[in-house]
């Protein structure tokens, strides 16, 4: 089996992971960075930073879960087709 045939699906998974990483970065910039809480003191600034961090973390987690899902799909698919 040639190298490109053996690695094609994994390269597609990697490219999807790369594209979704860029989309996640843009989503974080467009949706999370503009969030502003009424700044009545240091406490609210801290809360704003924590909320932004949590939301960015959620986006990162969703991206990682997508990546895990794709690799698990690949493992099951190869087990079915090539075992």
């Amino acid at each position: 089996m040639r190298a490109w045939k053996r690695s094609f699906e994994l390269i597609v998974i990697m490219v999807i992971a790369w594209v979704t990483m860029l989309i996640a970065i843009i989503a974080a910039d467009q949706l999370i960075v503009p969030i502003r809480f009424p700044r009545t003191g240091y406490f609210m600034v801290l809360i704003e930073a924590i909320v932004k961090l949590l939301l960015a973390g959620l986006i990162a987690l969703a991206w990682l879960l997508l990546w895990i899902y794709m690799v698990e799909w690949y493992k099951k698919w190869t087990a079915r087709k090539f075992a």
Partner: protein
Amino acid sequence: MPYWWAACFAAFLASFICTFVLVRFLIDFFSRRGIVGIDVHKPNRPAIPEMGGVGVVVGVSLGILIAVAMNFDWLVKLFAFLCVFWLASIIGVIDDLFVLRAKIKTLLTVLAFIPIIVFALLFPSEIVLGRPVLPFIGRLRLTIVYWLLLPFAIAVPSNAVNMMDVFNGVMSGCTCMASLALLIASIILGRIEAAVICSSLFGSLLAFYYYNRYPARIFSGDVGSLSIGAAIGAVSIIGGLEVVGVTVLMPFIMNAFHSLRSLGGLLERREISVRPISVGANGVLKANLSMEAPSTLANLFLRKGPATEIELVKCYHLMEAVSCVLAVIVALLMGVKF
């Protein structure tokens, strides 16, 4: 020819020649002293000299010092890079000689980011942290997230490269391509110091690949893999090439992340009970098709059928070549804004 082109070329040439000559000497030196590792993916399991990464460390350092001698304006950034690089290589030497536990090794590589912080605090106009440039978005000002991620900026590439140093020529070939892609990206974005570092790294890795390619005459050891990974991480931060750095390391990150996830944590090679692949009597490699097997890239590639080591190495190189193309696209997109 602009001056910095000459510096890049001098760094490339010096590091290439130095590594090429030194590694030839190191093969005999480490063989005589019994510093060898077993090539477990060959049927006759030959003993191959280890710690060839010393040649890369010396070669890269020489190339960069020559570039500094040509232009002292680059001193701060290049010296910050060298401090991280040397620190990671010292950790690698300790690991090669005394075999550290996986968690200790990872913890030590986390500390390798300290020189960057020190230099950034001492020379804030030279090394700017927390202002990464992203494609379509432009320059960001990350006051919290960047500093939270910074400790991992050296540890992740360092350990990810270390985890992919499993077959002849995989680590050296893939990092050689990665350093070339980083060199092209830094030229596109006009990051001269990063271009000088990448030239030196590329020259040294090209020379090392000559000896490390299938069938390997020397292994890099942890001194090579940890320092090369740290070098890619450090040049990405110092040169403001964070997203490009992540993109060139995608196959490494994919291998490390999915292996760790399936193993359930950091484990030393000797501590892993379920092997991802096995070697047949004729040297053909087979995947462990169990769903519990670690999801290393080797396991994933081989799930489609057995292959020889050379065929498997080509798969790694092909995947890295694609990620390098993506990295250059990222560099081109970094000038594009919504």
